[in-house]
């Protein structure tokens, strides 16, 4: 059982390695196929949390994969969390949480 795995760019990787995480997968954006493959592999290894760079997660192929993993999992693990990179949080038209709120409650809250 692995506690935390990180998929990110070189800076994210260096930072989280410094924090002591061993399962760090370093990619640069654009390597969607590799990222999708490594997501698959990590998801099979019973990881509790997967931290993924939000720029990676925004890529179509990767987004698809994340959705697939979320749909397939039976228990609560793995939890996939998107984290901002070195340049700070990405400007998004609508973040996932607001989207979920609108779908669940019917109106946007806050």
């Amino acid at each position, binding site marked *: 059982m692995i*506690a*935390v795995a990180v998929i990110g760019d*070189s*800076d994210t*990787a*260096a*930072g*989280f*390695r*410094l*924090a*002591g*995480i*061993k399962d760090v997968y370093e990619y640069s954006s654009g390597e969607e196929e590799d990222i999708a493959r490594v997501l698959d592999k990590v998801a099979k290894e019973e990881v*509790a*949390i997967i*931290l993924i760079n939000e720029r990676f997660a925004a890529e179509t192929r990767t987004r698809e994969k994340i959705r697939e993993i*979320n749909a397939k999992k039976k*228990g*609560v*693990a793995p*939890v996939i*969390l998107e*984290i*901002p*990179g*070195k340049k*700070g*949080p990405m400007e998004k038209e609508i973040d996932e*949480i607001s989207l*979920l*709120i609108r*779908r*669940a*409650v019917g109106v946007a*809250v*806050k």
Partner: protein
Amino acid sequence: MPEIIEGVSPTRMELLWLRRRVRLAEKGHDLLREKRDALIAEFLDVVGEVRGARKEAEDKLKEAFDYLIIAQAGLGVEEVRQLSLMTPQEISLDISSRSIMGVSVPILELQKELTRNVTDRGYGFMDSSVAVDKCARSFEEALEKLIKLAELEEAVRKLAGEVEKTKRRVNALEYVMIPRLKATRKYIQMRLEEMERENFTRLKKIKVMLERRER
């Protein structure tokens, strides 16, 4: 006017059965509505928490990246990378789940703190710098916050899914099932009454015919 359920024969048996179904559907509808309202209340609670947690974690991560940039500027990107490879630690994370209204949401619990002393990190003092220490420390702190955030975001995701499902069921009952059952019930009732009237006139007619024959 909602359509009636096809293939029901207008009999008293069907009518009884339909009445039972309407009662059941209405009870189910009430229960589901309550469940939906409770779920939404719970959902909004968690949403309030998650926003704060996200902000906190992102701020901490920003700080950590700032230190990383400083460390990289001082030592060089490659050197920091080399150092980072020397600092693994055992992270023991307990993952379990709890149930909110039948939705299982994760609980992620760290067994021990992630923040370490400088001496525990495993790199030498000679080739590292204060910036590296600060960077490592803020990444450790950021990681703790991210773990908390992961727990909350997953709860929001799960609850949202359940709210949606419950809402769909409530609406299906309210706007499709119950009206349809009621319409069918009414249809059978009317058919039965009509049949009764037919029977009544038929009997009257026969009576008249019989009386005429006797005469």
